[in-house]
């Protein structure tokens, strides 16, 4: 990975002052050992008019991968780090930021014993980072650097010239230019913002990282319009990732076996540390709708008189949490196929710290509605809140049998998006589903036909309840079917 820092000068203020500022002599190439490889500093040009310092970090990819493979402490925060095929040797990431701070530590602090007046003086600077991973794209790069007084040139890097249809990579070529910043400021900006843009699951951020951020951000971060995003991204991936890595290892291997990214198969839950994304998220799922859905479910459960309730596909446990607050529900069972979702749900409910009496009301376990399951028998009601649309249509009959044929609760509530309403989401492109994992979204008629057929087949009556504003033309955003079992047939031996 590589970057250059250039300055221009005059005979009075020669460009070669850069050498003093960086504490690195322009006449030599110097090598410094850092924790992830060797950093080289050299000057491709150095005269009074123009001077450029280049920082080249040779990352030992094999060592990085091998270190990443270990378990527990010292292991990688994410399995992808253990990849030998890794962009780390090439792209400017936090490894480069760490190298910057260790190789140019005095310059970053703004000290220069030989020429104490130099660090305080702004000078024309040009910084070029040829390969900068930029999650958020060129737009975010500008939003981060422009408020700091930089003129920003940012060009996307194509993924592969031979396959133009693949589009741009996540890298950009970045050039920052300014004549009003000191070198120390520039280095501190880079030190913080390179990892923020990379936003990568990189290496363990040590616990004193907050102090480091405060120090490097002194004088510019508090007033930065994107302060929240910067802080959140810089610090976010500390503990959540540790846990995530442990919980997902088995799944990661299955993804690898199939040449897919783990994100592709672990999308049952949304990112847990998505404080940043929450703001930029489209309005496809405004919080009120989720709340309205829960309220509608609880109201229908109340009407049914259910006390022992299954939340099938409980996800992160929001509904379980709401049900726990209502004493009418004496036993609440959350079932999900995703172990990660269950772990998050358990954390959300603080199951390990819950009082015994309260804890005895709630159970969470892994299950799958593609199979019948004796543990699900004998409950008053089952809720399938936004679940069926995550199944491929051909596999729906298995779920129908598992719930209505085998588990057979007296009441079953099923909610699913009403696709007709999608035209009302301004931010949702036409023809798009509301969530990447939705295998289908139904009109009211389609849902009605399905629900009536299921009710008929398994001996239930069904009613439909709109959830959210019931638009006269396209209906409500969420549709809910309430199934009630018909009186049980006489049970006698065949």
């Amino acid at each position, binding site marked *: 990975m590589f970057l250059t820092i250039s300055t221009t000068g005059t005979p009075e203020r020669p460009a070669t002052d850069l050498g003093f500022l960086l504490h690195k002599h322009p006449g030599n190439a110097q090598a410094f050992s850092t924790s992830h490889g060797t950093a080289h500093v050299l000057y491709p040009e150095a005269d009074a008019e123009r001077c450029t310092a280049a920082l*080249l970090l040779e990352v030992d990819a094999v060592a990085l991968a091998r270190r990443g493979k270990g378990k527990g402490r010292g292991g990688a925060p994410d399995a992808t780090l253990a990849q030998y*095929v890794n962009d780390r040797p090439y792209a400017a990431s936090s490894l480069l930021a760490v190298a910057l701070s260790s190789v140019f530590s005095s310059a970053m602090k703004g000290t220069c014993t030989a020429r104490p007046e130099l660090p305080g003086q702004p000078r024309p600077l040009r910084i070029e980072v*040829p390969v900068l991973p930029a999650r958020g794209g060129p737009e975010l790069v500008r939003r981060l650097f422009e408020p700091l007084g930089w003129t920003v040139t940012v060009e996307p890097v194509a993924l592969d010239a031979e396959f133009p249809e693949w589009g741009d990579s996540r890298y950009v070529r970045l050039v920052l230019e300014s004549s009003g910043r000191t070198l120390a400021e520039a280095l501190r900006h880079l030190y913080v913002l390179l990892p923020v843009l990379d936003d990568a699951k990189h290496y363990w951020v040590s616990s004193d990282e907050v102090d480091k951020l405060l120090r490097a951000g002194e004088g510019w971060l508090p007033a930065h319009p994107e302060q929240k995003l910067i802080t959140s991204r810089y610090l976010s991936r500390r503990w959540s990732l540790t846990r995530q890595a442990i919980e997902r290892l088995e799944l990661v291997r*299955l993804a690898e076996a199939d040449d*897919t990214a783990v994100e592709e198969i672990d999308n049952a839950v949304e990112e847990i540390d998505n404080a940043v994304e929450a703001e930029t998220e489209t309005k496809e799922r405004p919080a009120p709708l989720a709340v309205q859905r829960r309220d509608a479910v609880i109201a229908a459960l109340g009407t049914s008189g259910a006390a022992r309730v299954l939340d099938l596909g409980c996800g992160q446990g929001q509904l379980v949490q709401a049900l726990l607050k209502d004493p009418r529900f004496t036993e609440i069972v959350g079932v999900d196929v995703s172990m990660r979702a269950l772990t998050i749900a358990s954390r959300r409910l603080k199951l390990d710290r819950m009082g015994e009496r309260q804890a005895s009301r709630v159970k969470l376990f892994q299950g799958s509605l593609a*199979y*019948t399951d004796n543990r699900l028998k004998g409950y008053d009601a089952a809720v399938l809140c936004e679940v069926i649309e995550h199944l491929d249509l051909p596999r729906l009959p298995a779920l129908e049998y598992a719930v*209505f044929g085998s588990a057979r609760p007296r009441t079953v509530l099923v909610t699913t998006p009403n696709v007709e309403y999608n035209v009302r989401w301004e931010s949702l492109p036409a023809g798009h589903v509301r969530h990447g994992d939705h295998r289908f979204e139904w009109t009211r008629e389609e849902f009605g036909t399905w629900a009536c057929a299921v009710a008929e087949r398994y001996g239930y009556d069904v009613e439909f309840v709109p959830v959210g504003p019931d638009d006269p033309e396209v209906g409500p955003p969420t549709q809910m079917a309430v199934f009630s079992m018909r009186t049980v047939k006489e049970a006698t031996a*065949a």
Partner: protein
Amino acid sequence: MTETRTGRTLSVTDLSLVVLIGASGSGKSTFARRHFKPTEVISSDFCRGLVSDDENDQSATRDAFDVLHYIAGKRLAAGRRTVVDATSVQSDARRQLVELARQYDVLPTAIVLDVPEEVCAERNAARSDRADMPRRVIQRHTRELRRSLRHLEREGFRKVHILRGVEEIEGASVLTEKRFNDLAHLTGPFDIIGDIHGCASELESLLGKLGYVDGVHPDGRTAVFVGDLVDRGPDSPGVLRRVMSMAGSGNALCVPGNHENKYGRHLKGRRVQHTHGLAETIEQMAGETEEFRTQVREFIDGLVSHYVLDGGRLVVCHAGLPEKYHGRTSGRVRSHALYGDTTGETDEFGLPVRYPWAEEYRGRAAVVYGHTPVPEATWLNNTICLDTGAVFGGKLTALRWPERELVDVPAERVWYEPVKPLRTEAPGGHDGRPLDLADVHGRRVVETRHQGRIAVREENAAAALEVMSRFAVDPRLLPYLPPTMAPTATSHIDGYLEHPAEAFGQYREDGVERVVCEEKHMGSRAVALVCRDAEAARKRFGDGGTSRSSAAESGGGPTGSLYTRTGRPFFDDASVTEEILDRLRTAVGAAGLWDELETDWLLLDAELMPWSLKASGLLRSQYAAVGAASGAVFPGALAALEGAAARGVEVTELLARQRERAADAAAFTESYRRYCWTTDGLAGVRLAPFQILAVQGRSLAGLPHDEQLTLLDRLVEHDGTGLLQTTRRLYVDTGDPESVRAGVDWWLEMTGRGGEGMVVKPVGAVVRSEGGRLVQPGIKCRGREYLRIIYGPEYTRPENLARLRSRFLNHKRSLAVREYALGLEALDRLAEGEPLWRVHEAVFGVLALESEPVDPRL
């Protein structure tokens, strides 16, 4: 109780608990010694001695009886007759023994030795160890004995023999009788016929089809009816008449079903509900003579709950029977034989839920039964249910024994509307019961034919459950998952991490002489299930993957499946899958393989190309990304170094190294590009099949690879669409250095042109080493350039290779063999027509093992 001139003959069943009852000194031990084997007899005196070193230590009585009961229990569990030699004059002592007999489902038999008190006293006095036994003890014994005599039958003894006086005891003899259910001496051959339920016409058709002429088989075969002859159907009297006449003439055996049992109680005048078709039987029988009804009552009354036949190899009963009940005689056994093991719950149709005893059955005898209607009669753990719902419009099924052939006739119509549909739409409902979470969840052990018990850990099953539930194709269309494959041992040849010399060497060590090197295609592993048509797919694999509406729209439903190594469909769009299957199907037909392999479906192991088709996400996020980053960083870095060099700064070595790194990165980009090309619909998509895994009724996993490849060559030849691609191969003799050299050269040439590498397999396919363990089914040797994609662009640098050579293959090899054995197991279960959950159990195991921690680069 028969009396002869020489004395009485006491009949004692061959498996029973015989309790001798008599006062001290009545001669029990002498009697036991005379009539039973010494090992059959357990005496309380002996047990007292065991626990206290003194046969007369009365304080040891409680412990002595614990031992006696324990030994008796062990003997009875093992099916051995046991004689208890203790006074047993107290009802409480007998009660414990009757309970013991019931616990092991054997007949409790009492033999009473009623001897005058004086005789007992005399005998005791003559024995030094009992000489000082007080007279009142014997008096008490005699008193208690007399009081007991009337109650013995009510206490539960099924046979009671009372011998009065010394003379009668002396003259008595014991005759061992077989149990009624033990017909092991009959060897048939048999034709076992499922639940008839008054379908007299279907019964006649089936008997005709089996070769019976008016109830008699010209070859002397015996029909065996599993019960439920009556109720629901149009002509229960007709069925009874036929079965009774065949049974009466020795041409048939019959066990009772729950319906006969209930009708029998009705005939005896008991009050029973006229439900579940009984009303029809009563009405039909009203037209028969009183005499016939009496015959029927006697016939039903005489039926034995189950039969053990053919040397113990075959057990026939109505509702199935676990092994511990075979040949046993108790109310519990009879109840299980008639009704099965009900759990007390009812299902969605109000029908009783039955405990799936057959799923746990591991017994030696085949159990043939009926009772629960199933769509198809299929073997499960050496059990088979023959109730194929004739009265509900299904069919009437018979099993030929010992041939194990199924013969059936369709129902002429739906005679009675079933409460519950014969098959559910859920996966597995087609052939038994739907898949249950307990089949796959938690820590499990899967029994395999080839590798014994294979354990699946809980966390691996949990990960597999997630992928299987959310992404896989319908389990019915997922009869197999391919195992992982171990790479060759690490090479120490300069510049190489993998080299075929090691693979040949490994097989040579394993004693495999002939191997085939198969070109490794640069794509993604794919399994294709291709059926002759939608109907064939539905018939063999059920309504898998068909939602009701989509089946109706397309007018057929899927004709197979095409999925990845974790069971995900290759194409989101089902019509693309269907188009590939259609091309395959056409080629199979043109090559004449349907007829030649006597099948209407094929399961193929293959490689689908290009790699970019499926892995595009990974390609973009990882491989192309690394290519893009390296491609963009080096020009600037090299220019900077060259600039510094021009200024006289000493960077020679650094510059040279960066140039090499840039070249490595470029080579990496070239490597992944070879596996990518643009496709449009199916244009550009290629499929290279390299093994036919299974066809109807057969696993072909053991078919030698040379024969496999010949078949597949014909398939490829007959594909006119350009979809199918042949697999290049070379046969190598591992013991012939010349041949091995040719193999190495072939690999060098192929990988030199950018090929991914090759897989070396024993030509014999499923091969065991001399030690009897499975040898690796294949070893991959990946090309030097290809490995850049795995180990990174710069892996060939000497310092990197040196470190990468320390890689640990043992776990990968073990995993490969375990997954292979599970895959073979799935194919065998599929071939034998086992129910879906059995096949799925093995398939799921493969997926679960795939999540075991093993170096993913291997």
